Every structure is written in C-alpha cells, then in structure tokens.
C-alpha cells in the first residue's frame, strides 16, 4: 500500500487542482455552496473513474513496460513536475506530466510504443482546439434554445443554476473517467493493481483532493479567471466536460485546464471579445512544451539516482 502513496498523492493534488475547472465557476459565482459542489463533484469523479476510466489506463500502461520501481519513479516524477510547475505559477497539466514521466521511463527501457504516443500527442493538440470548437457549438445551441424559451429572470436563473449543477456533475464524471489513468495506470502497468482496483483507488484519491483542498484553489482560480457571465460560464463548463469526456472514450488522459482555456477562447470568438490575456496564453504554451519534457528529465534523474551504488573506497 505504501508504494501506492505517490499515486494517491498525485490523485489528491489532481483533485484539488482540477475541481476548479469543473465546479469552480458555480462556486465562485456563489450559485452553489462549496460543500454541495464538492460532494457532488467527488461522487461523480468516483463514478466516472469506475465506469469510464479503463480506456485511459489501457493507453497509458501500453506506452511502455514498467517494473515495480519504475512505476513508483514515474509517479513521483510526475508529482514533482506538477509541484515544480505550480511553484513557477504555470498552468500545469497532470496528464502531460504523467505521460512525460512514462516517456522518461520508456527511454531508459528502450521500449516506447510510438503508436500510442502518437495518439496521445494528437489528443494533446486536440484538447484546446476541441474546447474552442465545442464551446462555439454549445454556445450557439444553448443560446437558440434559451432565446426561444421566453423565460423571465427568475425562471432563467433557476434553469441556469440547475444546468450548472448538471454540467458540473458531468464535468466531474468526465474528469474522473479521463484523469484516473494519470493516477494509477503506472501501477497497473507494473502489475501491482488490477484495472478495477486502480479506478477505485484513483477515483477515491481524486475525490479526496476535491473534498479536502479544492476550496482554496477554487477561490484563487475564481479571482484569476476572466469575468464570464453565468451563461458563458455554463458553456465553458459544458464544452470542457464534453471535450474531456470524448478523450476519456478515446482513452487518452488530457488536461482539463487546457480544455477550459480552449472553451473560454471559443466563447470569446463567438461574443467578439478578448476573454484571455496574451500572457495567460503564453504561459499555457510554455507549460504545454515544458511539462512533459521536465517530467521525462525528472524520471530519468530519479531512475539514475536509484541505480547509484556506494562503493567503499
């Protein structure tokens, strides 16, 4: 069990960080109380992990072959990368950190599944693009429906609140289904866990992160996020959830933060406003390139360090 602590820690930090992407807007706009949102999100994350997490685990464990030690190394390397990038203030993707660490281990093994890697890379590019496209489609669709309903301010507020709860729950489900592989796939690859045990442990650790530490992150993200009106916030959450869910079905863990940024850009395009600052975009691009690179370097360094032997002089 102690050997799984690295994975559980990674899951916990993922839950604490990424919950803001799915329920942050509902909480920071005070449409939902934190505890209501956190409990809903934790339950749906676990459901997503258990019901839809298998495909991602299959992809990640297929990228290379792991030994017991390498599984632990890649998980610690990913956790270190996430921490390091967070300290630098860059929007880090846990999925990219995990894949980067697995690549590092794969380089040492001289065993890399390039077909699987290609699929992952295509999906990484597709995440923000998918967020943009889906945000535009979802916006147009929901706007047409909302405008044809002729609701008064009270009815539309109630509907908006219910939709945000629904979209947040769906987002949490997609987060669990897509990102559980980041947490425990390496342990499945090393034969330490079965897929069902991996989805359960991964889902629980992400849920724990949401319940124990996401409030602070949510408050910070809420203040940092661009000022979106409630309808646009709903579109962003829904577009992000659909994007992440599609990749969960494909079986590639992707970044919810990148999907959110794509969706916010999409809303900006349709409303003709500048929703994201240039600086934020530059940071996202920097993180996009550096996260997997850094994780690979960390994994290589950790592996090298564990193989050092003391030779008495």
């Amino acid at each position: 069990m102690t050997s799984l602590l690295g994975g559980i820690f990674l899951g916990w930090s993922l839950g604490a960080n990424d919950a803001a992407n799915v329920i942050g807007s509902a909480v920071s706009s005070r449409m939902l109380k934190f505890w209501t949102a956190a409990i809903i999100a934790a339950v749906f994350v676990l459901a997503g992990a258990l019901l839809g997490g298998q495909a991602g685990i299959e992809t990640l464990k297929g990228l290379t072959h792991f030994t017991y030690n390498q599984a632990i190394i890649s998980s610690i390397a990913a956790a270190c990368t996430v921490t390091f990038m967070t300290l630098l203030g860059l929007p880090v993707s846990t999925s990219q950190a995990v894949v980067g660490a697995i690549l590092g281990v794969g380089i040492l093994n001289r065993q890399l599944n390039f077909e699987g890697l290609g699929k992952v890379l295509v999906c990484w590019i597709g995440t923000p693009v998918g967020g943009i496209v889906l945000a535009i489609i979802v916006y147009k669709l929901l706007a047409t429906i909302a405008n044809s309903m002729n609701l008064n301010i009270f009815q539309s507020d109630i509907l908006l609140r219910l939709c945000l709860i629904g979209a947040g729950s769906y987002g949490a489900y997609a987060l669990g289904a897509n990102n559980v592989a980041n947490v425990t796939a390496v342990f499945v690859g090393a034969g330490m866990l079965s897929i069902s045990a991996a989805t359960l442990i991964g889902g629980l650790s992400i849920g724990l992160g949401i319940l124990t530490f996401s409030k602070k992150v949510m408050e910070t993200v809420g203040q940092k996020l661009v000022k979106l009106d409630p309808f646009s916030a709903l579109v962003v959450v829904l577009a992000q959830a659909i994007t992440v869910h599609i990749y969960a079905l494909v079986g590639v863990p992707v970044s919810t933060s990148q999907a959110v940024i794509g969706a916010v850009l999409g809303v900006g395009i349709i409303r003709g406003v500048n929703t994201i600052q240039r600086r934020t975009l530059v940071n996202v691009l920097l993180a996009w390139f550096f996260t997997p690179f850094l994780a690979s370097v960390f994994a290589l360094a950790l592996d090298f360090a564990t193989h050092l032997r003391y030779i008495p002089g």
Partner: protein
Amino acid sequence: MLKFLFKKERQVQELISRYLDNLRSTQEHFEKAMDCYFDFGLGENCDFLITQTHKFESRADDIRNEIIEMMYSKVLIPESRGDIFRLLESIDLILTHFETVLFMIQNQRLEVPDFITLDLRDLMRVSLECSDLVIRQVEAYFKKTEDIKPLVSTIDSLESRCDHMERETVRKVFDSDLDPFEKMQLKDLVNHMGEISDQADRVSRSVHIINIKRRM
C-alpha cells in the same frame, strides 16, 4: 420538488409584485392629492391625501429593502441581483419625485396661478401616463406578459412631450408679472413634475438594456 427548492426565488417574485402594486397605489394617491390641490387648493383633504401618498412611499421603501435583503441571502445569480437592485433604486426615484412635488406644495404653501393650471394638469397627466407605462413595462419584464420594446418608444415619446410642456410652462411663468420669488418657486415645481417623466424614461431604458443583456 422544484417549488420547494426555489422557495426564496418565489418569495422575491411575490415581493416584487407587491412593490409594483404599492407603486400603483402611491401614484393613485399622488394623482388624487394633485387633483384635490388643483380643484380646492390646500386644505384638510389635500393634507390627508399627501400623508397617504407619503405612507405608500414609505411602504415601498420597506418592501424594496426586504427584496434586497432577501436577494442578497443567496437568491438569484449575482448578475441578476445587481440588475434588480439598480432597477428598484431607479424606480424609487419616481416615488421620491411624487413626494417632493407634494411636499413642495404643502410646505411652501404654493399657489398655482390660473394661467398655468391647465398646463400643470396636462403635465401631470402625461407624466403619470409615463409612470403608469413604466410600471406595466417592469411588470412585463418580470412576468414576461408582453413585449417591452414598444413600451420603450411610447414612454420615450411621452417624455419628449413632457419636456416640451415643461419648457412652455416655465416660459409662461417667466413671461408673467408674478413676483420673481414666486416665479422661482413655480419653476422648481414645474421642473420637479417634469422629473417624473424623465425618471420614468430612465427606468424604461434600464429595463430595455437589462432585457437585451439577458438575450444570449
């Protein structure tokens, strides 16, 4: 189930209906007080009606405060709260103008000369028509009973008419042989009466903008 979940929203909706009903009552009493003043001058009846108007205005303040307090106890989304808050503040200014006109007449013991009585009656009638339409427009916005856009242009044209009447009346006052002090008093009265339609027009435009803003 949903009714149980969104009880506070329904309470705010009911309070807004009560506020608008109270607005109508304030307006009715203002009209009665002004008619009484034009017909019989200041006296017991007129004082009673002025007090009644004041009571309705105070009650409107109480209901408005209750709405705001309830809204900020996590009812509605923050953007809607802000919109309703600003709208109620703006509507309240119409009531303030009703009260100001009556208190000016009562406290300054104003006497309207015959040559402008008819003009003032007309100005009051059109101003009240404006305020009546605004109440209808606000009600339509909250209940979605009718399209509010045609009301905006009607209120706008009535407001322009009021502005014209206001200018004409002030000109008549200053063309007369009245005492300069009386002229200034009457000018103030006419301006305050004109403010009713000006404020009604501002409320009408706010409602229109809020409505457009909420279209996706």
